[in-house]
């Protein structure tokens, strides 16, 4: 899968240039969108790390994502005390993560005495306090309701991903400000470089979380999810394990938020701290597979692909531009009922309303596919895809 994702920008470029280019452009997410899939996917994975593996629904998880995003933007603007605007981005991410760990420990210490709905509500409460706070905090910017942007005066450069202080091992990310790369016969645009560098950070984070899940630590988490009393009876203190999982998850959520702040060079309360941001992670986790770690990334990919396909703006393909180009005007303009044309109907009922269709799919998943995409595939194969797929195919070959 990593290999497939590594080749994606090339495949996308090839396909878009091919005779089927318009179809590819219509159906496939743009590389720019994929960067968002990566960092938000990381956030969704971190949400899954605590909620999917311990069974405690962290409904205020956006507080960590927001912490990361705000930290990076404020640090880049020189608004974080003791931190120069020129601090390497990687260091900023690390510090943002550590700040989130501290917040997670504080919130978790108070919240893990509760469970079920009550746990979801208290974490939601904390996150909403933070949300309302940053939305009104005029230190952030003149108009805190709209968030803040990285100032081009204070921090003109893009954000470097790589090994700090070694210039050759860094590449800048960003839509416009990112580095471009010419290497042998390959040339990569700023967005494509961002794709790889953000993807790299996300991959490293994913591997770290995966190691933890497959360690004895992860086994205890699963034991807690299945039966907390039994886990306690065999000598594990569930509180400490839950708290640790919460802190680790907060760390990676903040890294994800930091990446979003660095790539987009801005932060807004409604897209970072609001409870619906957690809702989006929840959506990705359920569709991708709750308690599968990698699943939420696929869930987010699915979500974003549908959104882009039904995008109102029509940039990067989508349904309506495709139909406009390929259907005769008479069809597009045809009357359906009472002056509503086919094009108008798509504009009205489909475009910009991906939430509706994603929501319907989400509900269907909750009802009929509770293990999500990845979870279901794993169940069918009887193990993780990477491990089982070769065996599985082998069996078919021999039959």
């Amino acid at each position, binding site marked *: 899968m990593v290999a497939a994702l590594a080749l994606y920008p090339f495949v996308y470029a090839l396909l878009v240039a091919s005779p089927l280019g318009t179809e590819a452009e219509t159906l496939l997410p743009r590389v720019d969108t994929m960067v968002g899939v990566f960092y938000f996917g990381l956030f969704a994975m971190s949400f899954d790390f605590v909620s999917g593996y311990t*069974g405690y*629904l962290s409904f205020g998880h956006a507080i960590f994502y927001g912490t990361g995003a705000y930290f990076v933007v404020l640090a880049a603007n020189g608004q974080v005390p003791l931190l120069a605007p020129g601090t390497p981005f990687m260091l900023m991410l690390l510090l943002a993560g550590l700040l989130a760990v501290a917040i997670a420990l504080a919130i978790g210490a*108070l*919240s893990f*005495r*509760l*469970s*079920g*709905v*009550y*746990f*979801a*509500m*208290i974490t*939601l*409460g*904390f996150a*909403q*306090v933070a949300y*309302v*706070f940053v*939305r*009104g905090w005029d230190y952030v910017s003149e108009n805190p*309701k709209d968030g803040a942007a990285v100032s081009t005066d204070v921090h003109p450069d893009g954000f470097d991903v790589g090994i700090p202080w070694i210039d050759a091992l860094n590449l800048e990310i960003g839509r416009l400000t990112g580095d471009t790369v010419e290497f042998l016969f390959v040339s990569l645009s700023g967005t494509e470089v961002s794709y790889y560098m953000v993807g790299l950070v996300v991959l490293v984070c994913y591997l770290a979380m995966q190691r933890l899940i497959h360690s004895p630590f992860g086994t205890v988490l699963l034991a807690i999810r299945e039966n907390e009393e039994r886990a306690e009876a065999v000598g594990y203190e569930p509180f400490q394990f839950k708290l640790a999982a919460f802190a680790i998850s907060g760390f990676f959520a903040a890294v994800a938020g930091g990446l979003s702040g660095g790539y987009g060079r801005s932060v807004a309360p409604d897209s970072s701290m609001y*409870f*619906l941001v957690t*809702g989006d992670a*929840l*959506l990705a986790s*359920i569709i991708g597979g709750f308690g599968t770690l990698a699943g939420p990334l696929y869930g987010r990919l699915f979500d974003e692909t549908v959104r882009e396909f039904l995008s109102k703006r029509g940039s990067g393909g989508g349904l309506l531009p495709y139909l406009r180009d390929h259907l005769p005007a008479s069809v597009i303009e045809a009357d359906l009922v009472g002056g509503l044309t086919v094009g108008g109907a798509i504009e*009205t*009922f489909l475009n910009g*309303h991906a*939430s*509706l269709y*994603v*929501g*319907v799919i*989400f*509900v269907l998943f*909750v*009802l009929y596919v*509770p293990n999500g995409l990845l979870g279901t595939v794993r169940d069918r194969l009887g193990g993780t895809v990477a491990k089982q797929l070769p065996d599985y195919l082998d069996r078919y070959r021999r039959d």
Partner: protein
Amino acid sequence: MTGTVLAPLFVDALGEFFRPGTLSEVLLNGLSKAALYAMIASGLTLVFGLLGVLNFAHGSFTMLGAYLGGLVMVVLVGSATGDLARVLFFLVGTLVVFAAIGALGGAVEVGLIRQLYDRPPIYQILLTFGLALVLDEGARIVVAFYGLQPITDWRDALGTKPGFMAENLEVAGLTVAPLALFQIVFGVVTIGAVWLFLTRTRYGMVVRAGSEDDEMTAALGIDVNRVFTTVFALGSAVAGVAGMLLMWDPVWGASLPLAHETLLPAFVVVIVGGLGTFRGTVVAAGLVGLVDATMTWWFQNAITFTGLPEMMIFLVLVLTLIVRPQGLFGVEEVGGH
């Protein structure tokens, strides 16, 4: 904002706050908010008590009620319609909203939520969360189709308010907002009706019994599933009616964000009161309403922090869960659901 400027300002504001005129205004404002919160939250708490489902789509029912109520009013009321007729039409609209949103809620319980009772409660949260997305986006499509601005209040619906509710009255030197009075009366009547239903009817007795022990209730020959449907429908209907009430209120108004604006305070109210306890919810609604109104006044007059009222509400939630997680009137062990 330096200390020297703040201190006298604060003392001034404190003096201002304790003037009878201010206090009565804040009290009235707070009680009207309390009435609305109680209406919205009572459905939430009944449904949780009986079904163990924390319904994330509850605010969406309020939002739909506001639009549907607005639609009824806009259709019925012309510019020549007198004030009394407007109030009567409002009552007609209330019945329409009650029936329609109640039917929708019943359908949701039968069609969706019923399938999940034997799964962990987390799935019910997920399901209703998804349902809220679908309802909100569906409403957005319809609203946009008719050329209404989905984010801001629906002005035509606001305009169907009787003239006497639009401006404040001066009574004995005190400022009284007739709309707030109307909301309080309406809320008290609604909550009173629900309370009578719960305590004075056989069906209400069954609902209380089912909230405590649905197995035992079923073993006494009562079709608990039908009770679930009825209560879910009733809770949704009351939330819808609250939306109808908000449709006239310029502070809220019929709009899509109403779904979240009402859902979150309602969550706070049910948790503070104790999930599943009707009495606790009513008391907590009063508390949260008064905190909200008080903080709104301070924000407008002394402390320039935009999110102050909202932040206080969530702080009340967090503090309650830390100090007394079962809520003011909750007795159940916490986390049972």
